[in-house]
């Protein structure tokens, strides 16, 4: 059974059919990419699967369980993590705290114990600080461990999002354009980072415009256009697909 199974998924915003009848499935342990021109519905698809939007129609199954319409925090409990194309960093917190928030569900969140400074909570928090610093180093942010989030450059914040998502210890991670706006050197670093994440056994779903990175990393690729599935397959298959060449690669490459 596939880890994620999406069938006939649709969402409409008024007259805009942002995602229409899209079906695909993702096996555990692979890197799965979703490509398509701007406005094709890639981010909307991520929002549907991670519970930010409720589908108008269709079904989403995670490990066979129907998850369509479940809230984001319920999906987080099931090991689904994501980053945002438009940064969603908590600028009122330090960089490290942003990562620590990622571990939310793995902590004792009791209010009274927190207010009374229970030693068990404090010592767990100290461990978590180290854990967060290690995660920041893992994504290449070692020099920002003590930084305030609002003092960090764009490229670093993109990676901070990844570190926060990894702090959830997810099974499935959705990365929405992790290399957008990055320079070529940073893009290569993110490429390597995604590979490392996949090597840990985390299933990666990637939206990215950098075709080299997509072809390099992906086991399978889904092509969306105007909210519809245009093609799906391995990199080689997708590249040869005449519809894709006509509608997407032809126009953009």
């Amino acid at each position, binding site marked *: 059974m596939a880890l994620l199974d999406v069938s006939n998924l649709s969402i409409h915003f008024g007259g805009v059919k942002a995602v229409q009848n899209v079906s695909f499935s993702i096996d555990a342990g692979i890197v799965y990419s979703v490509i398509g021109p701007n406005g094709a519905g890639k981010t909307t698809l991520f929002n549907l699967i*991670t*519970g*930010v939007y409720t589908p108008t129609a269709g079904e989403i199954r995670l490990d066979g369980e129907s998850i369509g319409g479940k*809230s*984001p*925090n319920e*999906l*987080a*409990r099931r090991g*689904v*993590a*994501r980053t*945002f194309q438009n940064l*969603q*960093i*908590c*600028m*009122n*917190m*330090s960089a490290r*705290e*942003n990562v*620590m*928030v*990622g571990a*939310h*569900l793995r*902590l*004792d*969140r*009791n*209010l009274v114990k*927190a*207010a*009374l*400074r229970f030693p068990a*909570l404090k010592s767990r*928090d100290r461990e978590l600080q180290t854990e967060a610093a290690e995660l920041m180093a893992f994504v290449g942010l070692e020099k920002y461990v003590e930084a305030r989030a609002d003092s960090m450059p764009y490229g670093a914040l993109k990676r901070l999002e990844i570190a*926060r*998502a990894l*702090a*959830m210890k997810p099974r499935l991670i959705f990365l929405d354009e992790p290399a957008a706006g990055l320079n070529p050197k940073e893009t290569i670093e993110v490429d390597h980072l995604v590979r490392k994440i996949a090597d840990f056994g985390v299933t990666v779903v990637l939206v990215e415009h950098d075709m080299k990175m997509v072809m390099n990393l992906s086991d399978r690729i889904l092509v969306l256009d105007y909210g519809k599935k245009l093609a799906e397959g391995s990199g080689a298959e997708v590249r040869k697909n005449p519809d894709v060449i006509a509608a997407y690669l032809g126009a953009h490459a």
Partner: protein
Amino acid sequence: MHKNAYFGLSIVVAILAVLPFLLPNSFYMDLAIRMAINAVIVLGLNLLIGFAGQISLGHAGFLGIGAYATAVLPTHFGWHPLLAMGAGAAVTGALAALVARPIFKLKGHYLAMATLGLGIILNIAIRNEATWTGGPDGMPVPAMGLLGFELTSDKHWYWVVAILLAVSVWASLNLIDSPFGRALRALHGSEVASQVVGVDVVRYKVAIFVLSAVFASLMGSVTAHYVGFVTPNLADFFHSIELVTMVVIGGMASVYGSLVGAVLLTALPQALATFEGWETVAFGTILMLCMIFLPKGLVPTLAARFGKGE
């Protein structure tokens, strides 16, 4: 972030410890007590407004529930004052949870409107139930006996509220720097980001709203006992706004800002009393100037200027 935070607590404790020996007379002692009471309320309110990013324009209503529970239950029903205080807090907590849950599921300015309305309703109820509450004239509050010890003199009251304040500062600092507190700050920083890492946003907003309401209720009870008399003004709209202003002036999301805001705005009406009739105008002008020149509030602005965190 909070390495220096607990150092601030030791300064607060030191000030609280020496203050009563420096105050020249009972006028200042009274002022200090009222400052400390307000500071505790504002600490709770700042957790809601500054840290979690949610507004309440009706907190004086919760304060009123506590104050009137303390006045009415012992007077009319012979309840023990501590039991009355607990009952006030419990009713406040239940009411806050009841209204917060549906409101937090909506977005936008509903919370401001709903808390505003709730505060006004509570105030009207207090004014109208004259048989129980004395109506607009208010009612006296029986003295508080604690462990066979009557709290009568200002000195006793000072130490009670000083300890409450020190404990509240400590608990607030602890809370902010905990998994619970980080979730609160995260949902303020980015609601959707906090949701996707697993924060049940509605639940956290309700929890902090209830907590801050209960703080206000308990301190309403303390105020009632200390003053020995309650009036509906305690629970009116202007008092709610005053409390929010203390948060904003002192500094949103700043524990020590809460204290500074409470101290300044408790003292200000005294200082402005010479303006006779114009004190509200002077008050408003000062607030506007603060908002223009210190939009982040006093403590965060000064902290940033001197290059430190809180």
